[in-house]
C-alpha cells in the first residue's frame, strides 16, 4: 500500500517533470536585436541582442544569417584593462535568467558579409537553443552615430 502510494507519487512527479520540459520548449524570447553597420572593406561586424529565459537553464548553441557566411558566438572577458575575445560553442543561459549581448561584451560576430550593411538595412538572424527552440528575428542595422548616443 505504502509502496503503491510512493509509485503514484513518483508518477505524478515524472509527469510534472515532462510537463515542465514541454513548457521549456518555448521558454526563450529574444529582444532588441541590432547589428552594427560594417565598414567596407571589412566584411564583418557584430550583432547584439537580449535573451530572456523563463524556463530551465539552456544555452545558445548557434546563430546564422543569410547576410553572412558565418555567425560565431564570441564572449569577452576582462583581464586587467585588456578585453579578451573568444569564440565559444555555447552561451549558457541560466534558469529563469537572461543573457545580454551588448557592445564591449558578448556578441555574435558576423563574418564574410554577403553585402555591406548600411543604416536603414536589416537582416534576419536565426538562433538555435539547446532546448530545441529556434528563433528567427529581424535585426536593424544601426549607424555609428546612433550607437554613440546609446
Amino acid at each position: 500500500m505504502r509502496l503503491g502510494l510512493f509509485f503514484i507519487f513518483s508518477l505524478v512527479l515524472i509527469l510534472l517533470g515532462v510537463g515542465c520540459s514541454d513548457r521549456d520548449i518555448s521558454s526563450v524570447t529574444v529582444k532588441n536585436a541590432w547589428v552594427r553597420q560594417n565598414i567596407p572593406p571589412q566584411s564583418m561586424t557584430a550583432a547584439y541582442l537580449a535573451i530572456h529565459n523563463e524556463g530551465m537553464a539552456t544555452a545558445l548553441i548557434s546563430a546564422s544569417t543569410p547576410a553572412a557566411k558565418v555567425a560565431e558566438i564570441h564572449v569577452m572577458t576582462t583581464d586587467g584593462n585588456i578585453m579578451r575575445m573568444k569564440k565559444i560553442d555555447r552561451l549558457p543561459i541560466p534558469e529563469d535568467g537572461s543573457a545580454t549581448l551588448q557592445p564591449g561584451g558578448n556578441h555574435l560576430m558576423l563574418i564574410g558579409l554577403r553585402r555591406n550593411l548600411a543604416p536603414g538595412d536589416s537582416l534576419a538572424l536565426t538562433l538555435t537553443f539547446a532546448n530545441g527552440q529556434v528563433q528567427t528575428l529581424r535585426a536593424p542595422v544601426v549607424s555609428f552615430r546612433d550607437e554613440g548616443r546609446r
Partner: protein
Amino acid sequence: MSFAFCSLLLLFVACKPLERVPKSDPDLALSADPYPFGGDLTLVDHDGNSFHLADQQRPFLLFFGYASCPDACPQTMARLASAYTILGEDARDLRTLFVSVDPKRDSPQMLKTYLSHFDVPAVGLTGVQDSIDAVVKRYAAHYEIGERNSAAGYLIDHSLYTYLLDQNGDLRFFFRPSHTAEDIATVVRQLSR
C-alpha cells in the same frame, strides 16, 4: 618574465589615476601634471607621411586598435564621435589618433578608408612592428594575438584606454571604456582653461 612585466605595467596604469586625481572629483579631473608615461611618438600617418607628435602643437585623443576589430574599436570611435558633437567648437583643435596594432593587415590606405566612416577628425597611424611596439610600451598599453580559431582570422586582444594628450604632447588623462561621451567632453573642456 614578460608576463610579470606586463602585469606590473598594467598595475601601474590601473593605480596611477587614483593617486593623482583630487578626491573631490575622482574620475573627471584633468591631471595637473603630465603622467610619467605616454609622450612623443613617430609613426606613419594614413596618407603615408611621417607623423611626429612633437611637431603637432595641438591636443589629441589617442587609442590603440585595428581596422578589423569588430566590437571595441567601432564602439570607441562611435563614442568619440558623440563626444565631438557635444564639444562642438570646443573640439576645434582636437584630433584623434588611431594607432594600429595590426600593421600586417592595416595599411595606411586601409586605415584612411576605415576612419572615413566615423564623424571623428582622426589620423590613422601605423608603422613597422618595432615602432608600434615602442609606442605601445611608452603608453603602458598592451596587445597580443588572441583567438586564432575564428573564421575572421586572428583577433587581437588589446588594452582599451583612450589617452588625452595636451598641446605639448603630455598625457593628462586616460578614459576607460566605461567613460561616456559626456565624460570625455567634460575632461577635454578643462584643457582649454
